[in-house]
């Protein structure tokens, strides 16, 4: 693995190796030493959580970070090309972690530089480190990735996170419930892909009766802007709000995940239940990103 650009580039072994390393780093963070290694964070658009998670990952392994956050005041504003900016960053650092609003930007940068590139989000296309930390979180909470029953809830049409998650889980014989309002359903091309791969799934418009069945509830935010009119939004939004009441009858091992930030789709009374797992999920991001950085820097043992 030279770069991490898209989940499509990874095979099951790559994923298993990263999961194992993340687990081992969580137990023993002192096993690796990235001192004198420098990570360049090239963030063309704001993302507090992803960037800080990467910085934390690098620093907890004693590595250093240089960062470009947003383009204001930088040479990008003067009209420098992405190719030039990344070539210079490559002279300053050992690995590039980048987020860019345009799709395919990280792939392009990986062709321009000799050092490893990690895609930390390229528009609506890919966000592979999120998918990997989600897999790690699911595995950690359930003990295995095999044969799980998962409900993906909320905006399944535009949600990049849930799209890559279904592909990432597909090899592990999952059973999915796709729970979304009609206008935000899982796109047809993904549904067709899953059929071709023989993955089990059911489409639902609410959570009725399925909660006791689930191992994982993966909740995403429904954005009001996605709806043509406010009335339609008001009609559906309550069906997709998870409260401690919604979770009655859930199995003991069931966990609620959310890529965060949440607004109101998980009420705060869920936080104190044994089902809440979204803050752990955010923490797991640090271990997974450590595993990714160490692997790409050639430091994984």
């Amino acid at each position, binding site marked *: 693995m030279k770069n991490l650009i*898209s989940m*499509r580039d990874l095979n099951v072994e790559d994923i298993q190796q990263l999961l194992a390393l993340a687990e081992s780093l969580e137990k023993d963070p002192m096993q690796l030493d990235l001192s004198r290694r420098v990570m360049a964070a090239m963030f063309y658009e704001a993302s507090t959580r992803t960037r800080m998670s990467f910085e934390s990952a690098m620093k907890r392994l004693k590595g250093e970070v240089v960062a470009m956050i947003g383009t204001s005041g930088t040479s990008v504003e003067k009209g420098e*090309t*992405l*190719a030039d900016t990344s070539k210079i960053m490559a002279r300053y650092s050992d690995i590039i972690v980048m987020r*860019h*609003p*345009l*799709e*395919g*930007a990280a*792939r*392009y940068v990986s062709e321009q530089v000799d050092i490893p590139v990690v895609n930390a989000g*390229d*528009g*609506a*296309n*890919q966000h592979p480190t999120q998918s990997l930390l989600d897999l790690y979180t699911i595995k950690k909470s359930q003990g295995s990735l095999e044969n799980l029953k998962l409900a993906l809830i909320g905006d399944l049409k535009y949600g990049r996170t849930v799209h890559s998650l279904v592909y990432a889980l597909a090899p592990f014989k999952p059973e999915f419930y796709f729970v979304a309002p009609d206008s935000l359903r899982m796109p047809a091309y993904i549904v067709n892909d899953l059929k071709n791969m023989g993955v089990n799934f059911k489409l639902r418009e609410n959570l009725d009766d399925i909660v006791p069945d689930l191992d994982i509830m993966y909740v995403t935010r429904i954005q009001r802007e996605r709806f043509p009119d406010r009335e339609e939004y008001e009609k559906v939004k309550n069906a997709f709000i998870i409260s401690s009441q919604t979770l009655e009858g859930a199995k003991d091992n069931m966990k609620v995940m959310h890529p965060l930030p949440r607004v109101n789709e998980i009420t705060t009374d869920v936080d104190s239940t044994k089902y809440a797992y979204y803050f752990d999920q955010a923490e797991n991001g640090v271990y997974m990103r450590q595993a990714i950085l160490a692997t790409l820097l050639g430091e994984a043992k």
Partner: protein
Amino acid sequence: MKVLKVDPIKNGTVIDHIPAGLAQRVLATLKPRVSDIVMMGMNFSSKVMGQKDIIKIEGRELTQNEVNSIALIAPEAKVSIIRDLKVAQKSKVEIPELIEGLVACGNAKCITNGEPMQTKFRLINAGKRELACQYCERVFNADELKHL
């Protein structure tokens, strides 16, 4: 005696078996130069195709990249290179596995539309003429993509 509707050429390229109605699009992608003498025939009768278009270009041999660009529009076309009135080389056009710098990505938010760089597409289904952008990963039918 066989009567030719379009004059034979001495040296150059003949593009035959273009589906009727597509000759103008094929020609547009080839961007004829002032020095090219071009003959275009449309809606000729064809045993195989019913009707077909044909293009002859005197004085210019198409490059592989140019032949590839024809494949994206008219995969059934046949290209012959003519030297001294004889067919020197005859080939069916074929969409290559990797298509570089020929068509623009149809995704406005693709990096190829935001930076001075070459587009790259991978052929994912020859029968359906489906191409995936190497960068934004979106899949398009060849007809959806504008030639550069």
